[in-house]
């Protein structure tokens, strides 16, 4: 899969007194197997961008191409797009409406007109992907679950349609530490073991630094930077700070050590890397 956003603009309430330009001349190319992080301030257009990629909004200007085909040229193609791209909104558990978890997860495949036997397998797979036991959970009400479990079931309901690209908008918002770690392990697994393309929006720089391979920084409806997280967190610190974004805690620590003249590398992304660097520094003495 090859997603290409070509000079995309999006304006809310077009031709109304309160129209607002949410996105301005966006150009992105997404290759199969990428793990992309998107960061930016609240209201910078992240969520709008995600909805455009999933074909839920039509760009006011520009084109969105998937495999070289404009997705808005033929409206019947949109369902196909949504089958290939799974989008989990913020707080996805707010869309629950079925009486059992099985039915909740089967909603997506059913909409795509898949036969009942096949749906069963898909539900099983989806639950397995989020690390939940099929027989233990299938007949329970989705509303009886804990916050973390709800979130995982909600994500399973997206995975059930077997999308090639998975888009997650703030998947860890308001989860406790344990549920968050579980969910992050699961997302990592989707990328490494199931080879899915993943687009992740988060305000948590630690998560972004640890997981993503490519980072898009947005500011005021435009793309400000598009590079590897290491490069951005190493070379564009002032730029990030100027738009009110912070560094991941470990990166910040190493950056400050370097600033006071310690012989360490900056642009460190994980605790593991930081440990190595600090040990090296101590040994040098």
């Amino acid at each position, binding site marked *: 899969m090859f997603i290409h956003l070509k000079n995309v603009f999006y304006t809310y309430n077009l031709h109304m007194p309160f129209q607002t330009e949410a996105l301005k001349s966006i150009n992105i190319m997404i290759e199969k197997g990428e793990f992309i992080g998107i960061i930016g301030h609240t209201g910078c257009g992240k969520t709008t961008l995600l*909805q455009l990629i999933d074909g839920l909004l039509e760009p006011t200007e520009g084109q969105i191409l998937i495999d070289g085909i404009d997705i808005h040229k033929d409206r019947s193609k949109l369902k196909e797009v949504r089958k290939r791209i799974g989008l989990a909104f913020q707080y996805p558990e*707010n869309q629950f409406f079925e009486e059992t978890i099985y039915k909740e997860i089967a909603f997506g495949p059913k909409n795509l007109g898949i036969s009942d036997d096949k749906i069963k397998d898909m539900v099983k797979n989806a639950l397995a992907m989020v690390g939940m036991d099929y027989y233990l959970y299938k007949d329970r009400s989705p509303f009886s679950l804990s916050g973390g479990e709800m979130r995982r079931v909600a994500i399973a309901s997206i995975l059930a349609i077997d999308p090639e690209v998975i888009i997650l908008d703030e998947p860890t918002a308001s989860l406790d530490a344990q549920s968050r770690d579980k969910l992050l392990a699961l997302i990592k697994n989707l990328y490494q073991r199931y080879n899915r393309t993943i687009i992740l929006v988060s305000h948590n720089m630690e998560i972004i630094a640890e997981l993503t391979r490519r980072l898009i920084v947005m500011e005021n409806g435009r793309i400000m930077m598009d590079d590897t997280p290491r490069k951005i967190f190493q070379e564009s610190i002032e730029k990030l700070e100027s738009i009110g974004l912070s560094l991941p805690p470990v990166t910040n620590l190493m950056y400050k050590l370097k600033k006071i003249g310690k012989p360490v590398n900056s642009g460190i992304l994980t605790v593991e890397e930081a440990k190595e660097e600090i040990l090296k520094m101590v040994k040098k003495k």
Partner: protein
Amino acid sequence: MKFSRNITIGQYIYQNSLIHKLDPRVKILTTILVIISLFLIKSWFGFSIIALYLFINIFLSKVHPKFVLKGIKPLIIIIIITLIIHFFTTPGEVIYHIWILNITKEGIQRGLFIAVRLFLLIVATSWLTLTTSPIALTDGIERLLSVLKFIKVPAHEIAMMMTIALRFIPTLMEETEKIIKAQMARGADFESGNLIKRIQNFLPIIIPLFINAFHRADELAIAMEARCYRGGEGRTHYRKLMISIADQIFFITTLFVILIAYLVVL
């Protein structure tokens, strides 16, 4: 899918005008009096007086008449249906005959009369909502109803419920749109299928919407209690309603106009 754009009921248009500055209680009372008079008046002369009165009110409020007409639009079908029913069902002098139906002269007269009455009713009520902010309106209703406290009318509670309902209309709209998109992302299709299928398709929107609304109501109740909300007893208002001379003049003029419209038969 966008719903938010199509809702115009109870729309408030801000203008700096005499009418906007009137006390909401006076406006509510005069509107009620005008509505009652519209049911009592039996003459075309009376209607034209009321119509003139409403026209002057709208003119003074500086609200563009197109907003008033917009309020009538959704009810035009009802007006036409009543018109047609009266044409055919009133006994009297037959002037036109189609198949087994007779159009009578009295029918046309009565039908037109009722249509004009409906039209004026809508104009009178939309004049009220166009020139009074929802908050002022509920405030006015609360004060008017509190007169009935001795027969245990919960005036403050009614007003609070109205305020909360008004406050949450835009929130619920936004939420509906979000849920629609989320279900579309799961492959839901709201635009095709027969009628029954389409109604079924709305379940995945309505159920989450209700669940979230209940959650929100719960949270709101707790938040209000946390700030010591205890109902209307001994509660003071930020904006004190006061009857000014302008209010008195307006009210007396309205009474006068209504009396002329009702009593003078030409």
